[in-house]
């Protein structure tokens, strides 16, 4: 699975995700990627999210929508909300993997509960990088 989240200079956010599923999956199996609010989500008022991991669990926990809901209803920051969903909701329920997320202020967070995540980030202030392990 691959994905991207972005916030532009207008303060609009967007998310895109694409996947081949998992090796040896049953024909016709659909994971979280094409399910809005699970593996891909975007809403200016909260955040944009792209997930990668054990799709069935990301679906059951509506991972993307849950991060947005924690921001909207609990007033959590992007970082707090994404970390809780990835490390607690997903991490404690066989949902290995991670997310990338951005909010309309341009804050980024890339938490994952697995050994590694292929990831990259860039901000207009110059902060930029690619990484694989923690």
């Amino acid at each position, binding site marked *: 699975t691959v994905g991207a989240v972005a916030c532009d200079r207008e303060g*609009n956010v967007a998310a895109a995700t694409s*996947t081949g*599923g998992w090796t040896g999956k049953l024909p016709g*199996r659909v994971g979280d990627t094409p399910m809005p609010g699970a593996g891909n989500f975007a809403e200016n008022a909260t955040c944009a999210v792209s997930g990668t991991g054990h799709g069935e669990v990301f679906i059951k926990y509506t991972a993307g929508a849950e991060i947005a809901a924690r921001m909207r209803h609990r007033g959590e920051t992007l970082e707090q909300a994404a970390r809780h969903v990835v490390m607690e909701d997903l991490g404690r329920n066989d949902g*290995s993997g*991670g997310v990338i997320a951005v909010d309309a202020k*341009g804050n980024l967070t890339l938490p994952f509960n697995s050994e590694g995540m*292929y990831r*990259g980030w860039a901000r207009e202030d110059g902060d930029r990088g690619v990484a694989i392990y923690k």
Partner: protein
Amino acid sequence: KRYAIAIHGGAGTILKSTMTPEKEAAYSAGLETALAAGEAVLRDGGSALDAVTAAVCALEDEPLFNAGRGAVFTTEGKQEMDAAIMDGRDRSTGTVAGIFGPKNPVKLARLVMETTPHVCMIGDHILELGRKAGLEFPPRDYFFTQARWDALHDTLAMKAKGQEDADPARRHG
């Protein structure tokens, strides 16, 4: 406002024991290419929607990652792809599932969002719309990689012995 972008190429058990400097450099280069594609759009004042489309297309084109070219195989030895895009301005979204054919499945998802009243589409009709819209449909071999084919046969051999790969990441997209 100042722009920001993040990308991922998948998460999981990325064993350090099997990661060589050459492979790590190749993965990092693939990530850099995608990051640069998305950031270039934002730097020019483009939209977040166009930035994530450009970045994911670059990742779909890179056979090291599991999407588009380099997608994994089902138990039947076929490739099925899912993709999604969502616009934070009005929550408009387009997704495709279980399809095979377009070089960049994320562009097909965007076509659903921009040209149909629907959110999620499966099956041949959306592929037909993609062809009519001029999306690129390469020959089947374009999507094949030996590494993914070998991974399928390793997985099937394990299943045939009644074994299950204990690695939680094997169920990762």
